[in-house]
């Protein structure tokens, strides 16, 4: 095609188009600003409540594993678990592959318990992630599964919403039952397997037992780290003990 000389109408059409385009992008920009404004407004109004909800949900989850009230009704611990996190290095006994976070519980400065992240690497379909609460004397306060891929209807009975099997661990320790008892019934242990599923409970029992051993060996170091964290948060709050 031959290049045609630019005519009057041609430039004005171009100008019209440009003007339309700039008007469009202006509208678009205006709407972008408006919608972002709407979201910001909602966010500002809900932020505090959302943070509070998340916190409460986390505390609820942790208190299921480590109830705040002792058997006699008194408070078992008085620190804020979410603020007393301890970092736990990669460890074979805990089955962890990355540094994970645990929690330490204190009454005053006295160590009361820890909550450890534990992984059972060989479930029926991959790893089973758990949180294990262990009191200072080495007894279990509670165990909960946080993540797993076990077969629905068989291995998923380790979830608290499916069955209460996981609660059998409360009160157990390295001496209760003895070493031999730490297995499923099929292997001569004390823990029930599920009908049709042995692998899953076997993996969980083994992982819990391992975590007890880990605690036995690392108790002092875990609580020292927790205490340091505890004092730091108290320092931030100007010496006020965290209720």
């Amino acid at each position, binding site marked *: 095609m031959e290049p045609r000389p630019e005519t009057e109408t041609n430039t004005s059409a171009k100008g019209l188009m440009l003007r*339309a385009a700039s*008007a*469009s*992008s202006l*509208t*678009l920009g205006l*709407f*972008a600003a408006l*919608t*972002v404004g*709407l*979201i910001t407004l*909602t*966010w500002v109004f*809900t932020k505090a*409540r*959302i943070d509070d*909800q*998340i916190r*409460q*949900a986390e505390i609820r989850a942790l208190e299921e594993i480590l109830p705040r009230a002792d058997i006699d009704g008194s408070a078992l611990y008085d620190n804020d678990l979410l603020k007393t996190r301890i970092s736990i290095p990669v460890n074979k006994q805990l089955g962890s592959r990355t540094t994970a976070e645990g929690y330490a519980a204190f009454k005053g400065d006295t160590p009361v318990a820890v909550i450890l992240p534990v992984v059972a690497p060989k479930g029926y379909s991959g790893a089973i992630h758990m949180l294990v609460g262990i009191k200072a004397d080495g007894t279990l306060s509670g165990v909960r599964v946080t993540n797993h891929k076990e077969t*629905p*209807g068989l291995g998923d009975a380790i979830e608290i919403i499916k069955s209460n099997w996981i609660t059998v661990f409360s009160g157990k320790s390295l001496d209760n039952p003895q070493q031999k008892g730490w297995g499923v019934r099929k292997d001569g242990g004390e823990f029930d397997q599920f009908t049709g599923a042995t692998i899953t409970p076997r993996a969980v029992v083994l992982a819990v037992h391992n975590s007890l051993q880990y605690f036995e060996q690392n108790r002092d170091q875990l609580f020292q780290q927790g205490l340091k964290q505890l004092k730091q948060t108290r320092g931030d709050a100007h010496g006020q003990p965290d209720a």
Partner: protein
Amino acid sequence: MASPTPEAREITLNGLWNNNPALVQLLGLCPLLGVSNSVVNALGLGLATILVLAGSNLVVSLIRHQVNDAIRLPVFVMVIAALTTCVELLMQAFTYELYQILGIFIPLIVTNCSILGRADAFASKHPPGAAVLDGLMMGAGFALVLVVLGALRESIGQGTLFANMHLLFGPVAKSWSVVLVQDYKQFLFAILPPGAFFFMGLLIAVKNIVDNRISEAKKATQDKPSTGSKRVRVTGTVS
């Protein structure tokens, strides 16, 4: 562009039955199948969808004269995304546990085609009143299917109805749970994803049966007066 605004009755019928987004248009199936395993999940997502649909229809209808065709879709998408984000934040703030269960499906409301579909096909051509009604009714039609599917799957899968309603309505609703069968052996098929497809198929089939019955009944009543009439209509309809 300027088609006459349909009557409220027609809009309502369209949303709930004739043009139901889930049963007829088959839009938004991903969340529909994903969270319809119990009534509370279904209702939670259904309400959120109604909110976004009615809201986006209202906004789109209000701005329909200010936005030209070239940037129509991006603007609609922005409106829908903003409303969805707001609903997500609100759910997080007020029904946190339900929000955790519904998870990814709340932000995914953005991708529910029926919302952009209604914005473009209806709200951008009609005044705000009709647009809001359309959004409400389309949303209600979608939510209705969700809840029926949720009720079917929950009752057959777990033998309960309205379990865990307190996640949505607070502690008052704790007592709403109905145990249909004591010691019910879970029928996992209904709760797992394949069951969603199966029961959805059944619902669509039931709707088609009902529609067929209705049109047959109509035909029967229409045919009757023609007997004995002098004029015989051969083809077409006289309006």
